[in-house]
């Protein structure tokens, strides 16, 4: 049942993506002719890892796409994260309506093939049964106050509230005794405040998120340590070097909900399968060669995701690269 629903969902997402791409190319051809679109460069942010407009890890209060308050904008994006032992692919689209409402869909695929091989070799049995964990994230964001870019003479930031509904496809695995997540779906709720300090070339963002998600939801929601919503703080700062070039850093708190039930069941309570979750941070550079394209490269550190030292999978500190491309209008 779940698989059929999932396939239908994936199909819908893909066809939505295809039509979004078509619209974007049609519009960007038009925009090329005029050679302009109507928001200022980079002021729509880039697509963060869950599909909302923001930095790399964190949603911002800006509305995605280059549409102004009487226009519709949007973008498609692809993001590749490669840490020492894992890989994450994300693609999706974002639509901004009248600089007020943002709608986004993202598909994530997390590759843990390397861990699977180690564990299978160590145990002599394949308890994973898959190399990828996938999930769909549907996001909604509404700007409720302020004007991040133009209100340069007040401290009042732009404020938005948002939610991200996440539906993980790997129900059996994430709820299994290996992971012990309590649910395969969940909704994050957040409020973001973004301010451009134009005279200082500085953009600041703070986001407060209520969440139960383990590793963004890729390892499900809730676990044996915690199964309730917890507030998490996310901070970004970007320094504008040129109107098309920004560097910055981000920090994102993450909950630490999981304790593998297998540790009690099989290993007498020893922390053999270590699922301790750490906070994430990144240092990024974002470049917009034209109005329609933005490219982001970052060093990212996700900390521990899943470590099984007993089988030689000592994967404690997952750091690596984050590369993202976005085409928008």
């Amino acid at each position, binding site marked *: 049942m779940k698989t059929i629903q999932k396939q239908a969902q994936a199909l819908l997402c893909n066809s939505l993506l295809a039509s979004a791409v078509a619209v974007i190319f049609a519009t960007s051809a038009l925009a090329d002719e*005029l050679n302009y679109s109507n928001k200022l460069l980079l002021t729509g942010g880039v697509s963060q890892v869950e599909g909302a407009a923001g930095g790399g890890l964190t949603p911002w209060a800006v509305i995605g796409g280059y549409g*102004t*308050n*009487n226009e519709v904008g949007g973008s498609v994006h692809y993001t590749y994260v490669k840490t020492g032992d894992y890989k994450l692919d994300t693609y999706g689209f974002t639509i901004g309506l009248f600089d007020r409402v943002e709608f986004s869909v993202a598909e994530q695929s997390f590759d843990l093939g390397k861990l699977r091989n180690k564990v299978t070799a160590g145990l002599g049995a394949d308890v994973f049964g898959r190399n990828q964990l996938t999930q769909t994230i549907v996001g909604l964001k509404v700007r409720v106050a302020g004007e991040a870019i133009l209100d*340069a003479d007040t401290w*009042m930031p732009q404020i938005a509230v948002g939610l991200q509904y996440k539906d993980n496809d790997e129900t059996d695995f994430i709820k299994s005794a290996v992971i012990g997540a309590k649910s395969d779906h969940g909704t994050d709720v957040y409020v973001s405040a973004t301010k451009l300090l*134009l*005279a200082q*070339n500085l953009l600041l963002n703070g986001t407060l998120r209520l969440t139960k998600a383990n590793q963004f939801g890729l390892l499900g929601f809730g676990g044996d340590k915690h199964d309730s919503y917890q507030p998490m703080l996310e901070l970004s700062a970007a320094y*504008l070097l040129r109107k098309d070039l920004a560097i910055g850093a981000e920090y994102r708190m993450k909950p630490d909900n999981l304790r593998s039930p297998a540790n009690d069941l099989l290993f007498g309570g020893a922390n053999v399968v270590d699922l301790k979750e750490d906070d994430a941070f990144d240092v990024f550079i974002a470049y917009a060669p034209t109005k329609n394209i933005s490219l982001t490269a970052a060093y990212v550190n996700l900390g521990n995701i899943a470590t099984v030292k007993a089988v030689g999978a000592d994967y404690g500190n997952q750091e690596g690269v984050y590369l993202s491309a976005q085409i928008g209008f």
Partner: protein
Amino acid sequence: MNINIKAATAALLATATFLMAQPAIAEVYAQNPNLGNTPMEGTATFEAFGGKEGLVKIMDDFMIGLVADPRTKPFFDNNKQTFIKAMLVEQMCELMNGGCKYPGRDMKASHANMKVNREGFNALVEQFQFAMDKHNVPFSAQNKLLAKLAPMYREIETTTGDAVPPVFPKAE
């Protein structure tokens, strides 16, 4: 409990007032009713623009850009160009503490017989950025001036719908 609520409300109100307050505005309008914002301190930014001479050259190219850009052309492809450029030079010069006195109208009055929307406003900012780039004004100096200009959208933008340009005779 009651007191707590009162205290909380007072604190919230105080914060809100602090956030919303545009500290210098009352002062500005007393000093210079039409400029639209407070002048800068020091003259470093003015110098980065090449002084008044530099401003004149930038405004010449700015106007060429405004007329070439389909989003702003209807507003500027007319016989007001020389006047608007001269006014902009005085306004920017005074905002950058360059020793000028802007003689024009305030931002609300000068944009009253037209309808400007956000596209138009951003288009103008972009054309201004192109002109400043062309004249090698450093990015951070550009942003110091833009920070003075950006808030003027509150007086200048008068619609979230279609733009309506003013009706002026064409330039000879």
